[in-house]
């Protein structure tokens, strides 16, 4: 996208500029000066008609001179000739009535890139042409009456030609073409005309009898920064004012505001219509305009430089990205067919500039250690009391009776007391010691550290007329808050553009390499089983602890009588020595070739091809000293005590588990574009293309390598076919081999077309159509899919209104269909290999998918109405859009009666409807010389509901306790529905509603279908969200802060006390101390009493009762940024040096919930404040 940047302008002191105060300099001197300008810019498109005479004379001379060995002087001569020719032609006026020869001679001088033309045309034909053209020109001159004013309009800052600039002279009006050129007819000899363009200051240009050619430099109106943009759909780039669809655009300045290492988090809070939330249903946590599918993928399609990006989005360095466009409605996204239903995010990388330029940026992020005490939990003392109680009830007796089964230190002490090995006082003393411990102290001290991250990026751009190149290198490293985790990313990108034959051929070559290396040195992890566990003794030695796989301490103390390996697990030792080292290495090489040629008129043929190779290698090395290895070896060991030998089916040595995934993508596209103007007002553009895409993936899970020596790369063979007895339990098991291979192929073929017609540049109609085919199972079914299409229209009212209050008012609307494809289902009965073999050595399969003959692709009907506006000279502006999305033939997925034999039904059975509004506005409160104050507001409202569903949910429990989505007609797709909570009864048991009365007959409530017993609270996904960003700048200092908000959603408090969970050993309850304990407590608390044994229905009721539904509404201070920028090199006008300080995870300003929880961090710890310092420099 093109955008003017504040503080950036070319050095044009010696050039004639029509500045906003309308000072006017002689066009003659302007033209001459221009020829002398070393940084002369040439327009790419030659107009042959006026070009030829000049070339003829010049080239003849040059041909002679160069033949004589003056080749090195060629450029200088060419320039000299330009001056000569200019003087000859400057007063010749080729202006004429509508049509034929359009440019004046003077303009030819200014505009033509002489050198290239000379190289590409042969001088021999010039003579004839000269005669023809001269005659033509003369005949035109005769026809003159009145005169043509012509010229070119450029942006003052970048010198780039501006298209679509409105030129108005009296009642006449025209706009500039692609090259920024215009002509307008004037009857008067002198007067003035208006030059007006969105995002630029309007100018009145005066002219007199002598002036005919104008070089107009428009100065950016900084209020319009967002508006002057070119949006890219991945198939075409269009100026936003010519679009009928709904686009959200994020430019490079906004992308760089947040220095996060991941592009998606950079988009958070600044992108209109985009939501980042954990309930969006995809691992990237993003959604565009809400959800329009039930069970298919909700991930928006991500496109990088025209082609879908299938890899890990975190491999893309955000510093390489120039802009991001989010395609939201049918007119914008339908061109992506069956993958556009969730919206499309188009990422455009930085392209080469046509001058030498270096950009360097560096960023450093630091954050404190996390606070593990953020989430409340039971105290050690409380937990010990419960263990004592359960011990008396006999809960642990089964475990105690199995001599090797792990029991907690407390249970062990109590057991010893029962056996009479310890006295009650001794036990109490020991327990009191344990009551003092909190494992979080040790965890926080030994397992966490301050987070540290840095990013470095340098890009070198160079280029001239024919070749442009940008090379960028990036290196990022992050050291996470966990002492064992770090990550490293390296990016290399080279983008190259050749234009050897002007319009006839343009070649783009992009090569991109990235490498992402992640380390987790404690892959086995450690989650404390008891809150009082101690990890380090007073002398600083690592202590043993329990995990799910550890055996009882008293057993491992003596097991094997010294013949076995040490059988203890010491978490600190594992972590500090990196004994379980997981390393992932993700490399991607992507190269893209694009050929573009314009063989005839405006017809443009584009061929592009992208190949991408991705190698991903994950390996976990369990050191021979690791608990994992020792445990694996020990459990299969057999000891012959008589002979004193140990037989180890798994030999000593490390264990390696490695897998590799290789992915190839080949995408090819052939596309014809055209862009024709008919008469002065009709403008037709379009494209037609065909595309092939193939994604192949080969997974090779190498399985486990035993007895591995990482230095010698040797390993041992083991018997993975026989059953061996486990040493401790006498059960049997096989040594896991873990080898597996998998190949995936995803083939697609698509045909698409797009058409756009505009009348007088104000009224625009667009249409698109696309058909997709792919190799998913049951081809005949997916071929039935109807083509997806869209139509759109927009109208710019400004010329109609013609007032001073509005600068720009455009109404646009679109309608059409997007699609969503679910590749996990098929029309056929399918099965897959489940286990490599059963106990008789035969392979066995699992039915994956029951046959479904009526399978269709999902369609999303999408309607959008929007208005774009700018009022009061840019004081305010923005866009307001309403949309309706109706999901049709959606795949439905619901629990079915077990007699069916599958756990779920899956088919095209649902429809949904989503309505919403996207508002984006800015206000320029203050704009003086040095002080700017501006506010940007984003508001998004989305309301979805299920309108049709084939299967009605049966009992209340199917609606309430189902962890996924249960579509209920008339309610939001992702609803939070809970049992109605009626308080605790006098026994401390929670009550629900049966016939409107409090009741503890949980089974009736849960299994019944009386919907009075359940309450719909609301959507789980925010329904109103957005951001308010204030930017204040004073001279070179800028301060901005972003406030984000999310409203209209609920979450379930999952940390409330559960008796069942506590019996099972969980202690992470925030409200245990508030539980009911005595009669009368029910007046003050809603937390039920502790009951033993487990009562499943009671627990299922309380854990899903409405008292635990919490409103998630909150307002957050998302970030604050302070920056200072200056230009240290005065001679390099484009250069800029800036420093910034950026803070995020600052905290909530307001939250609705009373349980003191940040809705973003419902579990785990809260991310501490992060501070970034950075600098960027470019020249």
């Amino acid at each position, binding site marked *: 996208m093109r955008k003017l940047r504040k503080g950036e302008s070319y050095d044009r002191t010696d050039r004639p500029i029509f500045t906003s105060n309308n000072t006017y300099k002689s066009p003659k001197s302007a033209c001459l000066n221009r020829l002398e300008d070393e940084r002369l810019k040439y327009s790419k498109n030659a107009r042959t008609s006026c070009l030829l005479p000049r070339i003829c004379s010049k080239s003849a001379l040059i041909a002679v001179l160069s033949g004589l060995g003056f080749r090195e002087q060629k450029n200088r001569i060419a320039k000299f000739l330009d001056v000569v020719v200019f003087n000859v032609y400057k007063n010749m006026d080729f202006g004429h009535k509508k049509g034929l020869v359009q440019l004046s001679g003077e303009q030819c001088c200014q505009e033509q890139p002489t050198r290239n033309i000379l190289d590409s045309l042969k001088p021999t034909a010039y003579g004839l042409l000269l005669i023809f053209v001269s005659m033509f020109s003369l005949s035109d001159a005769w026809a003159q009456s009145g005169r043509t004013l012509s010229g070119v309009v450029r942006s003052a800052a970048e010198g780039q030609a501006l298209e679509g600039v409105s030129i108005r002279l009296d009642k006449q009006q025209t706009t500039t073409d692609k090259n920024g050129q215009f002509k307008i007819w004037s009857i008067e000899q002198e007067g003035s005309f208006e030059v007006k363009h969105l995002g630029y200051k309007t100018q009145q240009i005066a002219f007199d009898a002598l002036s005919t050619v104008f070089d107009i430099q428009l100065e950016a109106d900084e209020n319009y920064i967002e508006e002057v943009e070119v949006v890219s759909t991945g198939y075409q780039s269009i100026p936003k004012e010519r679009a009928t669809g709904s686009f959200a655009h994020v430019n490079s300045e906004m992308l760089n505001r947040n220095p996060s290492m991941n592009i998606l988090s950079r988009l958070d809070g600044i992108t209109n219509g985009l939501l980042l939330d954990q309930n969006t249903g995809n691992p990237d946590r993003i959604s565009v305009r809400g959800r329009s599918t039930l069970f298919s993928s909700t991930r928006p399609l991500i496109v990088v430089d025209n082609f879908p990006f299938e890899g890990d989005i975190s491999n893309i360095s955000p510093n390489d990205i120039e802009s991001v466009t989010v395609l939201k409605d049918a007119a914008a996204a339908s061109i992506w067919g069956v993958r556009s239903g969730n919206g499309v995010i188009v990422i455009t990388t930085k392209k080469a500039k046509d001058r030498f330029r270096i950009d360097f940026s560096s960023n450093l992020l630091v954050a404190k250690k996390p606070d593990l005490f953020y989430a409340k939990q039971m105290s050690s003392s409380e937990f010990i009391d419960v263990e004592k109680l359960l011990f008396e009830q006999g809960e642990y007796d089964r475990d105690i009776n199995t001599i090797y089964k792990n029991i907690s230190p407390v249970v062990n002490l109590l057991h010893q007391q029962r056996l009479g090995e310890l006295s009650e006082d001794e036990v109490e003393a020991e327990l009191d010691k344990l009551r003092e411990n909190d494992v979080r102290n040790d965890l926080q001290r030994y397992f966490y550290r301050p987070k540290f991250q840095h990013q470095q990026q340098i890009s070198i751009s160079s280029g001239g007329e024919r070749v442009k190149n940008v090379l960028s290198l990036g290196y990022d490293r992050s050291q996470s808050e966990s002492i064992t985790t770090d990550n490293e990313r390296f990016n290399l990108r080279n983008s190259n553009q050749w234009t*050897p034959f002007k319009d006839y051929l343009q070649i783009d070559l992009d090569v991109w390499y990235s490498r992402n290396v992640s380390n987790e040195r404690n892959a086995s992890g450690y989650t404390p089983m008891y809150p009082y566990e101690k990890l380090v003794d007073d002398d600083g030695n690592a202590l043993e602890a329990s995990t799910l796989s550890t055996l009882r301490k008293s057993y491992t103390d003596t097991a094997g009588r010294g013949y076995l390996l040490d059988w203890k697990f010491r978490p600190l030792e594992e972590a500090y020595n990196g004994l379980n080292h997981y390393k992932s290495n993700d490399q991607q090489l992507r190269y893209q*070739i694009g050929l573009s040629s314009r063989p005839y008129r405006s017809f443009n043929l584009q*061929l592009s091809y992208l190949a991408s190779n991705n190698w991903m290698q994950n390996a976990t090395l369990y050191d021979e000293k690791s608990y994992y290895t020792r445990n694996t070896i020990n459990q299969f060991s057999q000891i012959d005590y008589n002979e004193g030998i140990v037989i180890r089916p798994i030999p000593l040595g490390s264990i390696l588990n490695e897998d590799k995934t290789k992915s190839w993508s080949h995408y090819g596209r052939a596309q014809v574009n055209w862009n024709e103007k008919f008469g002065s007002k009709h403008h037709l553009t379009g494209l037609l293309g065909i595309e092939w895409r193939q994604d192949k993936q080969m997974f090779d899970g190498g399985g486990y390598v035993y007895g591995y020596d990482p230095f010698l790369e040797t390993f041992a063979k083991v018997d993975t076919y026989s059953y061996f007895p486990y040493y401790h339990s006498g059960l049997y098991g096989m040594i896991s081999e873990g080898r597996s291979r998998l190949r995936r192929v995803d*083939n697609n073929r698509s045909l698409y077309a797009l058409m756009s017609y505009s009348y007088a540049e104000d009224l625009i109609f667009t249409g698109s159509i696309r058909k997709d085919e792919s190799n998913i199972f049951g081809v005949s079914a997916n071929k039935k899919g109807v083509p997806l299409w869209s139509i759109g229209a927009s109208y710019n009212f400004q010329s109609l209104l013609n007032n001073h209050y509005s600068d720009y008012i455009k109404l646009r609307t679109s309608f059409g269909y997007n699609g969503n494809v679910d590749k996990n289902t098929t029309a056929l009965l399918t099965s897959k290999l489940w286990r490599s073999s059963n106990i008789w050595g035969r392979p*066995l399969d699992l039915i994956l998918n029951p046959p479904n003959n009526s399978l269709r692709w999902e369609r999303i009907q999408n309607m959008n109405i929007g208005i774009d506006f700018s009022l009061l000279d840019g004081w305010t502006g923005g866009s307001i859009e309403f949309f309706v999305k109706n999901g049709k033939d959606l795949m439905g997925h619901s629990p079915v009666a077990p*007699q069916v034999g599958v756990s779920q039904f899956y088919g095209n059975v649902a429809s949904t409807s989503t309505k919403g509004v996207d508002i984006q506005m800015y206000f320029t409160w203050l704009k003086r010389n040095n002080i700017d104050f501006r506010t940007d507001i984003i508001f998004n409202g989305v309301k979805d509901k299920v309108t049709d569903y084939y299967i009605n949910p049966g009992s209340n429990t199917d609606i309430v306790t189902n962890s996924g989505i249960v579509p209920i007609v008339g309610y939001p797709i992702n609803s939070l529905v809970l049992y109605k909570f009626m308080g605790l009864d006098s026994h401390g048991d929670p009550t629900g509603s049966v016939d409107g009365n409090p009741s503890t007959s949980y089974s009736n409530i849960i299994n019944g279908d009386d919907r009075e017993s359940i309450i719909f609270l609301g959507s789980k996904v925010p329904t109103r969200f957005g951001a308010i960003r204030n930017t204040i700048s004073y001279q070179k200092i800028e301060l901005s802060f972003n406030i984000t908000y999310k409203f209209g959603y609920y979450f379930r408090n999952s940390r409330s006390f559960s008796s069942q969970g506590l019996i099972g050993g969980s202690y992470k309850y925030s409200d245990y101390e508030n539980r009911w304990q005595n009669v009368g407590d029910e007046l003050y608390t809603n937390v039920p009493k502790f009951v033993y044994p487990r009562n499943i229905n009671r627990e299922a009721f309380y854990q899903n009762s409405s008292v635990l539904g919490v409103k998630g509404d909150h307002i957050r201070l998302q970030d604050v940024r302070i920056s200072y920028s200056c230009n240290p090199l005065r001679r390099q006008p484009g250069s800029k040096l800036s420093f910034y300080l950026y803070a995020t995870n600052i905290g909530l300003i307001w939250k609705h919930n009373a349980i003191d929880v940040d809705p973003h961090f419902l579990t785990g710890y809260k991310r501490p404040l992060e501070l970034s310092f950075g600098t960027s420099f470019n020249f």
Partner: protein
Amino acid sequence: MKKITIVLLMGLFSVSCSQDFLSERPNSNILAPTRIADFQRLLDNFEILGVSSALPHLAADEYYINSESNWLSSRSAIERNSYIWDEDIYGGEVDIKDWNTLYETIFYTNSIIKELDKIKEIEGLQGEGADIYGQALFYRARAYYDLVKNFSAPFDKMTENEDLGVPLRIDPSIDYTEKRASVSECYERIFSDIENSLRYLSHIGPLRERNRATKLAAFAQLSRIYLYRREYDKAEQYADSVLHRYDRLVDYNTLSLEATSPFNFTHDELILYGATGTYNNAGNLNRSGAVFVDTVLIDMYDFNDLRLHIYFINNEGGYTVKRGYNGTGLTPFTGLAIDEVLLNKVECLVRRGQINDAAILMDKLLLNRYRKGTYIKTVFKDKESALQQVLIERRKELVWRCLRWDDIKRLNKEGASIVLKRNLGDKEYILEPNSPRYVFNIPQDEINRSGIVQNER
């Protein structure tokens, strides 16, 4: 440049012209089963098809829990509630394997039968294809039998048309639900499936792959079903069908008395593999110190009876069970074996008064069960005492196989008046003969979603 263009264009066309581009298999692991071998792999999924319900074991009197606290600390409500024959045995638990896995088996077999029906219509089924068709029919019948005996009233010829059976599904489509058929309809389906399977199954058996159905398995299954229905002539007839073809027994003198897994997956007596779903209280090698083998049962064994040592371990507190006929499996064995067929035959012989033939056959079994040289020949005095002796032998031999519950139901129908009792703390729980609690509840999620009639308990 031109070269690049040509290469590029050729590349594009080569992709587009390829016939297979849109029919390439998207995933090497996933396939649409069409070949015969594809269906065999589905049938080999013994972890679904080989599983039957453990409820009859949990409710029967082969084990006891030694204290109320240990009963309370059972890992699931089903284990707790079925022990005391509670009105609701699931206690709120859903996704009950004892129902679901059997219907999953029915879905598998229905899918296979439907696909094979297509092939059958076109080209007919021979050889392996026919065999697989037979296996699928057999497994469908086996699953329905397990369901109908557990979730319907104990079989009674008089009321079989009124008694509610289970939903009968013979179409794999997943977009419909069935109401409960009558018991007689269920048995009609079961018998027609097994009889049909006998026409298609090509192996007599047993095969090395003991999960695969054979003619032997079909006969043995029929013998078991008819015995449960108290149609003793047919039970005997099918027992004969087995024993005429194959009657090998394992001599327990050849087995290790210490081994916790005395049998392998392919031992001689094993006709067809089968096991229940997993429950701690039903598990083999239970070392929790809570669950022990019924002492009355243990007392029945003579010291020289090797079964006492091979089936059980004398742990602190009582006897617990070792692994049984399913090799290293930890769940009760529910498959088919020669000893069961032989005992069916013996019982039928006794019932029709052929006590001498019965004694000869009994000796044949018990010679392999007693320590060498210690076995004293069976002498049956009269029909009545012979029957009592045979039934005791049946308890001793077919222990921990989920057969005891069905025998109690069957014998109580004949007036045996077997009363079951459990003691927990100071409470005593009693299950009267022919109590409605002999019928298990249908899982609540099934009732909720398909609205079929629940059993009265």
